[in-house]
C-alpha cells in the first residue's frame, strides 16, 4: 500500500481540538507537514506546543475528548480519517509503529517481554507461537540486547530503563513499519543511557532505507544530531520547517531563534555567553493572541503581525510562519531576543570558604529479613555517599554533576540536614553543622537555603505566596524587619514578579513562576549558601534560561555561594565556577569550569561529555562506549568504583586498589584515577569540536 510515489505521510492544514465543557480548545492549528519514505523528521516544541497531540492525531489515537476539526492526514494513498477500525488496526503496528516515552510504564508489568514482542508478530504476520517468539528474540538482538533468551523470559521490572526502551524499539521495528513515531524515547533516561539509545536510533535510521521516522522531543540538540528535517512548533502552530542544517544556521522564525539562544551550549560559560530568555510566557489554548501567536513575545512584532501569518514558502524547502521572514533571511532584521541587563561579575577570586564538607558519608542500612538472619546473613549497607569532600568558596558557584544513583541528591540532603550523615564533618562559615536538622541553630537555618527540582512541589498549594515569603523574612532575618510586606514586595520584584503576586495562591502560577517564588523564598533570609538541586531541569528551555540568569543575578546581589546540582553538564558548565563530577557516591573529578572540557578527563567525565547531544548539527564528537549499567550502591565495586564500566580499564590494579587523586601543582583540576596525568593527556583528544558556524550559536 505504501508503493506509491508521493509522500509517505501528508498532513494538510490539520486542526485538532479538545472539548472542555462547552468550549473547544485547539491544541494543533493549521499544521501541514510531509514526510517522505526513509526520511527522518524531528518535531520540536516546548510544553503546550501540541507536538504530542499532532503525533497522536497522525496515529488516529486521540483521547475521547479530542477531535480532528479540519484538514486531512494521508498515509500513503489513503486518508487516515476514512479508514475502518479494522484497517486502522492493520496500520497500527504493521505500517505505523510508536516508540513511547517512559518505557517502564509503557510495557505490561505482568507479561513476559518475549510474549509482548511476539504478539505483534503473531497478529500482523500470522506467525505461529514458536516462530513469533523466535523472531522476537531476533529483533532483540537487532537492538543489541545481549542474551535475548533471558530478556524474552524477563518481566519489565527485572530490567533497567535503558534496556526496556530497547525492547520497545525492537517491538516497533519487528514488523518493519513504513513510519516509526518516537515520542521522547529518552526523556526519563540518564545521559549516558540516552546516548546509547540515540546511537542505536541513528544507526537504525541510517541502516533502514525504507522506514521514515517522526521524532518528537523538546530537546533541540537531539534532533540536531538525528534528523534530516526539523519542524518547530509553538502554542499549537507549526512555526518553522526546514532542513536541519539551514534551520540551525539561520532560523527564519523569531521563536526558533529565541529557542536556540536559550540553550546553554556545552563548553560555554556565563562569562563568555549570555542566555537570552524569551520574554513572557507560552499562551495556553484559551488565551492565544489574535494574529501571530508569537507576537506578544516577539522583538520584531509590528502591526501586520496582528493578522494570522500563513506558512510562507521560503524556498530551499523551507517554510516559516512569520510575516517578516524575508527581512530575517536578508539579515536586515535581528530576530534575537535582547540581551538581559545584568552585572557581569568577573570570575571571583577566592575570598574565603563558605561551606567546607569533609569526608562525608551517608550509608543506609537495610535490615536483613528473618530468614536471611537465620542463614547468618546480616543486612546490606547502601553507600549512597561515600567519603566526599567539597569546598565552596564565598560567593562562588560549585556545580555537582552526576547521573541518577550517583548520590548527588543524597549529598545535598545530608548537607541541609534532611538526611543524617553517617560520618564526616561540615563546617559552615566556621560553625560546625550538626548532622540532624533538629540540632541546628537559627543562624544555620537562615544562612543555608535550598531550592528543589519540581516546581509543582515547590509551594504549598494551601499557602499564599505572600505568607510563604513573609515567614522566612520574619523568622530568619538577622536584622529586625519593620515592614515585612514591603520586604516581600521587594523579594518578588527581585525575581521579576509583580508585588501583586503576594496575593496569589500557588495554583494560579505557572511552573516557572512557582520556581521563581521558591527562589525568592530561599533568598528571603539573605542566605550565605544556596543549595539548588536540579532547579531548572523540569522547566521548558525558555523558562530555564531566565531562571539561570536570575540565579546568577541574585548571587551577584547577595554574594551567596551556590551549590548547583544537576545531571546536565552543559547547564552546570555554563553557570558554575568549579565543577565536581560524582559517580556512585564518590567524586571522580573536581575542576574549574573552564578546564573541565579539555584533556585530561577522568574516564567517566570523558564518557559523560561524549554523551551530551550537541546543538550544532555539524559538530564533531568522539564516541565513548560505556559497558553495562550503573551498579547498585549496595553492591559497590571494589577498588575504583568505575572499573566495571571504564573504557580505559587497566586491569587488576583498578579492581584491587583505590586510585590516587592526581593533580598538577598550582591547583586546577584533579581527578581520581590510576592513569597518570601525562599518560591521560597523551591518550585523550578533545571530546567535541564545534563547526565554524556552530560556535557562533
Amino acid at each position, binding site marked *: 500500500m505504501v508503493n506509491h510515489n508521493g509522500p509517505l505521510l501528508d498532513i494538510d492544514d490539520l486542526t485538532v481540538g479538545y472539548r472542555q465543557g462547552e468550549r473547544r480548545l485547539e491544541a494543533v492549528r493549521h499544521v501541514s507537514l510531509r514526510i517522505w519514505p526513509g526520511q527522518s523528521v524531528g518535531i520540536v516544541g516546548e510544553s503546550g506546543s501540541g507536538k504530542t497531540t499532532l503525533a497522536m492525531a497522525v496515529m488516529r489515537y486521540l483521547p475521547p475528548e479530542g477531535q480532528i476539526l479540519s484538514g486531512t492526514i494521508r498515509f500513503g494513498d489513503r486518508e487516515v480519517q476514512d479508514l475502518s477500525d479494522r484497517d486502522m488496526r492493520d496500520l497500527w503496528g504493521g505500517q505505523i509503529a510508536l516508540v513511547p516515552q517512559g518505557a517502564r510504564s509503557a510495557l505490561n508489568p505482568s507479561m513476559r517481554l518475549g510474549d509482548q514482542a511476539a504478539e505483534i508478530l503473531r497478529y500482523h504476520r500470522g506467525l505461529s507461537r514458536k516462530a513469533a517468539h523466535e523472531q522476537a528474540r531476533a529483533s532483540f538482538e537487532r537492538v543489541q540486547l545481549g542474551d535475548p533468551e533471558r530478556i524474552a523470559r524477563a518481566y519489565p521490572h527485572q530490567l533497567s530503563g535503558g534496556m526496556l526502551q530497547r525492547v520497545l524499539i525492537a517491538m516497533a521495528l519487528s514488523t518493519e513499519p513504513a513510519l516509526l513515531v518516537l515520542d521522547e524515547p529518552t526523556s526519563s533516561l540518564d545521559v549516558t543511557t540516552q546516548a546509547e539509545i540515540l546511537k542505536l536510533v541513528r544507526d537504525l535510521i541510517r541502516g533502514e532505507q525504507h522506514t521514515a521516522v517522526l521524532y518528537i522531543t523538546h530537546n533541540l540538540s537531539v534532533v540536531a544530531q538525528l534528523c534530516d528535517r526539523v519542524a518547530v512548533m509553538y502554542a499549537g502552530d507549526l512555526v518553522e520547517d526546514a532542513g536541519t542544517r539551514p534551520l540551525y544556521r539561520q532560523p527564519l522564525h523569531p521563536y526558533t531563534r529565541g529557542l536556540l539562544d536559550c540553550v546553554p551550549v556545552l563548553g560555554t560559560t556565563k562569562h563568555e555567553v549570555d542566555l537570552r530568555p524569551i520574554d513572557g510566557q507560552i499562551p495556553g489554548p484559551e488565551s492565544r493572541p489574535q494574529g501571530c501567536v508569537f507576537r506578544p513575545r516577539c522583538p520584531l512584532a509590528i502591526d501586520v503581525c496582528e493578522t494570522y501569518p500563513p506558512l510562507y514558502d521560503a524556498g530551499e524547502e523551507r517554510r516559516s510562519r512569520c510575516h517578516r521572514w524575508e527581512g530575517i533571511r536578508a539579515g536586515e532584521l535581528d530576530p534575537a531576543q535582547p540581551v538581559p541587563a545584568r552585572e557581569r561579575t568577573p570570575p571571583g577570586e577566592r575570598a574565603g570558604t563558605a561551606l567546607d564538607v569533609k569526608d562525608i558519608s551517608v550509608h543506609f542500612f537495610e535490615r536483613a529479613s528473618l530468614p536471611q538472619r537465620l542463614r547468618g546473613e546480616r543486612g546490606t549497607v547502601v553507600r549512597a555517599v561515600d567519603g566526599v569532600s567539597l569546598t565552596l568558596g564565598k560567593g562562588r558557584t560549585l556545580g555537582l554533576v552526576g547521573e541518577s544513583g550517583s548520590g548527588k541528591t543524597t549529598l545535598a540532603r545530608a548537607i*541541609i540536614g534532611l538526611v543524617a550523615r553517617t560520618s564526616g564533618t561540615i563546617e559552615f562559615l566556621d560553625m560546625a553543622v550538626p548532622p540532624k536538622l533538629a540540632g541546628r541553630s537559627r543562624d544555620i537555618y537562615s544562612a*543555608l537555603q535550598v531550592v528543589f*527540582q519540581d516546581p509543582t512541589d515547590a509551594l504549598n*498549594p494551601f499557602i*499564599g505566596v*505572600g505568607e510563604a515569603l513573609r515567614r522566612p523574612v520574619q523568622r530568619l532575618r538577622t536584622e529586625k524587619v519593620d515592614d515585612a510586606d514591603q520586604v516581600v514586595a521587594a523579594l518578588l520584584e527581585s525575581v521579576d514578579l509583580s508585588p501583586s503576586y503576594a496575593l*496569589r495562591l500557588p495554583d494560579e502560577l505557572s511552573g516557572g513562576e512557582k520556581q521563581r517564588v521558591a527562589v525568592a523564598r530561599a533568598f528571603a533570609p539573605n542566605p550565605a549558601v544556596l543549595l539548588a538541586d536540579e532547579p531548572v531541569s523540569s522547566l521548558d528551555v525558555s523558562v530555564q534560561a531566565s531562571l539561570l540568569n536570575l540565579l546568577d543575578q541574585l548571587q551577584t546581589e547577595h554574594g551567596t555561594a551556590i551549590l548547583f546540582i544537576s545531571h546536565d553538564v552543559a547547564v552546570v558548565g555554563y553557570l558554575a565556577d568549579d565543577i565536581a563530577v560524582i559517580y556512585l557516591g564518590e567524586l571522580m573529578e573536581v575542576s574549574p569550569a573552564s578546564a573541565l572540557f579539555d584533556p585530561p578527563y577522568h574516564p567517566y567525565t570523558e564518557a559523560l561529555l561524549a554523551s551530551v547531544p550537541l546543538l550544532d548539527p555539524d559538530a564533531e564528537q568522539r564516541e565513548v562506549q560505556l559497558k553495562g549499567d550503573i551498579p547498585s550502591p549496595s553492591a559497590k565495586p571494589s577498588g575504583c568504583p568505575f572499573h566495571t564500566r571504564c573504557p580505559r580499564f587497566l586491569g587488576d590494579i583498578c579492581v584491587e586498589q583505590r586510585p590516587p587523586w592526581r593533580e598538577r601543582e598550582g591547583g586546577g583540576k584533579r581527578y581520581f584515577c590510576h592513569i597518570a596525568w601525562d599518560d591521560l593527556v597523551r591518550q585523550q583528544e578533545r571530546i567535541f569540536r564545534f563547526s565554524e558556524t556552530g560556535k557562533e550559536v
Partner: protein
Amino acid sequence: MGEVASQQVDAQPARTGRLLRVLKQLLRDPASALGSAIFVIFFIVALIGPWIAPYGANEQIPGSARQAPSIEHPFGTDILGRDVFSRVLLGARDVLTLAGVGTLVAVIAGTIIGLVSGYQGGWLDEVIMRLFDSLLALPAFLLALLLLGSLGPSRNSVLLVIAVVYTPIVARVIRSVVLGVKTRGYVEAARVQGETYPHMLFREIFPSTLPALAVEAALRFSYAIFLVASLGFLGVGVQPPSPDWGLMVQEGRANVTQTPWALIAPAAAIAIVVIGVNLVSDRLKSILQIPAELRR
C-alpha cells in the same frame, strides 16, 4: 487569566472559592445534588424534629392503634397506637447525634493521631500502626459487638463504639496522606527553614489532608448510620422505647402482617439517608481526586 483582574483579588476569596467550586460541582451532578438535598433535609429534620412532630415519640394515642396511613397519620400508627410519622421524625435526631457525634469524635481523634504518627515516623508510628492493625484485624462490626458485650448496650456505649471502631480507620487514611505529603518539596523547604512543629503539622501538612478527610468523614458517617441501625435492629444497641430507626424495624417486623407501614417507614428512612450520604461521598471522591490507593 486576566492579569489586572487577579491583582485586585484578595487572597481570602481565592480560598473560599475552592470550597464554592466543590459545592458547585457537587450540585451540578444530579445524583450528588439529590444526595446533598437528602442530607440537608435530614439535618433540618433532626434539628427541628421535636417542633414539627405532631405527636410525642412514645405518646400512645388512645383508640388509634394499627391504623393505616392517612392524612391524620401519614405513616400510620403502630401496634401500641404510636404515630409512626412522629417517631421517624424524632428518630432522625437520634441517628444524627449518635452517628454524627461518634463520627466526629473518630474523625478528630483519627486526624490528630494520623498526623502525628505519619509526620513523626519512627518507633511511635510503628507502635501506633501495629496497634491499629491489630484492632482492624477485627472486622468493624465484630469489634462493635465485642465492646457492647463488655460495656452493656446503651446509647453511650454505641457512641463510644462508633468512635473506637472508626478512629483507626480514619487515622490510617490520614497517615497515608501525610506520608505522601511529608516528602513534598514545600514541606522539606519549610523544615529546612527550621519551622516549628505545630506550624509544620497544622499549617503545612494538615490542609493537604482535607480532601481525603472530607471523603472519609462522609463515608464513615454513612457507615455509622448503618451501624447504629443494625445494632438497634439486633437489640444490642439503643434500647426501647427510643424511636431508633433500627429498633423500630425490629419492632415492626414482629407485627409485619398487621402494621407493615411501621416496618417500611423507618427502613425507608435508613435507606434514603445512607444512600444520600453515599451519593455525596462518591461524587466527592472524584471531585477531590482522591488517588486510587485511598479509594476504598
